């Protein structure tokens, strides 16, 4: 099956570019923020950029098989589960430390 490179006048690499930009923003969020919730949001951004990638690949390269789309759905599930557990952990830390700055957690080192 020939795979189109352009659909509705938009080439595939536009999507990939946007997705990688989003991934980089997510990366920056995880690495630069000193707030655990913001870091978690960074991770969510990374996962969502992946979804963008997946859906674009699916639509452009292999629309007959549902694999790409299904994978994107599973990434949603994973992201939601991680967010739920992550928020619970952050709340638990907040109760003990009265802060959600991971930098304050440096009891364990070397």
């Amino acid at each position, binding site marked *: 099956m020939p795979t189109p490179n352009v659909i509705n006048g938009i080439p595939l690499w536009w999507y990939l570019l946007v997705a990688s930009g989003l991934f980089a923003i997510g990366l920056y969020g995880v690495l630069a923020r000193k707030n*655990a919730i913001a870091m978690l949001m960074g991770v969510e951004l*990374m996962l969502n950029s992946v979804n963008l990638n997946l859906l674009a690949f699916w639509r452009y390269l*292999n629309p007959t098989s549902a694999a790409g789309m299904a994978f994107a759905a599973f990434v949603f599930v994973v992201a939601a589960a991680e967010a739920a*557990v992550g928020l*619970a*952990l952050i709340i638990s830390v907040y109760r003990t430390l009265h802060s959600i700055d991971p930098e304050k957690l440096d*009891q*364990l*080192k070397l």
Partner: protein
Amino acid sequence: MMINSTDVVAVLPFISVALGSVGLLIADLLIPAERRHVTAWLAAALLLTAAVIALSLLGSPTFEAFGGMVISDPTAFFLDTLICTIGLVTILLTLRYNQVRGILRGEFYILLALSISGMTLVTHANNLLILLLGIELLSIPLYVLCGIARPRLESEESALKYFLTGAFASGFLVYGIALTYGASGTLSLQTAPAAPNVSGDPLLLIGIGLILVGLGFKVAAVPFHLWAPDTYEGAPTTVTAFMATATKVAGFAALLRVLHGGLPGMESTWQPLVAIIAAATMIVGNLAALAQQNLKRMLAYSSIAHAGYALVGVAAHDTTSVVFYLTGYAFTTLAAFAVITAIGSSEGEEMQFLEAYSGLGRQKPLLGAVLAIAMFSLIGIPPTVGFIGKYFVFQAAVAKGLVWLAVLGVLTSAMAAYYYLRVVMVAFIREGSAAAPLPTPSAPRNLAAAISVAAVFVLGVVPALLLSMIGNGMLSTTP
């Protein structure tokens, strides 16, 4: 798509553990709070059943199921058996330890079983979707388990650090999978890069690279290892024991599925990289372990170093040697942790520093002997399994022309003798200090130690026993 009985058999260990943990969740509601050890014993029974099921399926031939999403071969069923056994031994360790610390909770065992169900899915993954699902299923309960000893700050810290770095690593893994999918148009591990013109595609190469990053995190390979010492030190010791063994095995199972089972024809691409990572992991793990005064943290670095040795076998494309090495390492490490949980469990206060072990060999000769045997096996002295395992991976490396890697492995393990022996010295030679508490008695824990030590010796003397079970180990079904 209809699900037939072959499909069910293919992942029967997974199905039994997953359904069992749901059952456990319900059963736990009916068990009164002061009788939580019943949940523990139910979980133990569940894992025993799953282990027996996996063991009985060892003989079946290799086949794919669920439309090629999962694969079942002797190696997969062997790894299932191993993981369930590790879980079982861990539960034996927890009974006394968790009770003293007030974390003998029903959810501990439910989370443990859920995590194991994820691991038994990873071992069968023949598709990147299943791989991701299994890895997340094993990781998420572990994040919670690390922090289960709240409000102890070190437990919470270890959990949050593990979670943040783990989620970060998941991002790389998923991105890698997406790129691989984009390059090959499929998620199947068997066919992903089969098209020859694809295998040089930068998209695919970056994708595989990012998948390796995600999996390197799970096995704590350098430079993706930094989370491990902190998390291992802060988590409750029973959880650490589980993570250092079962999670390591599952992480390697994923690595083997991707590199040995999938990506046919790409060995020359990843082999040098894996070899370099293996070398870095052996060097950094052993060097950092040299300076540790905290036994738990030392074992964390030691587990990093041993991931390096297993990676030598991965680089050499010898699945059997990797699986054998991991089996030996797992039982040896469980034996060591059995001693640590014993020392730690006196009054709820963790006794992790080496000084706490002085005089152990004389006050409790058997416990001291278990510790010494574990250390000797970690060094790799015959007739323990540690020696045979190292021998297999190094021999595999030499056979593949990776002589420098084998030489480096032998050198670093000679270096490792220093810090392992120091533990033996302290336990047997130094006078016991009055501050060191006497270990509390626990029959299940002693059973766990006995099982581990027996495995260390039996596998060290008759490794042929295990090799026949692992099978030929080549996970790929591609003709």
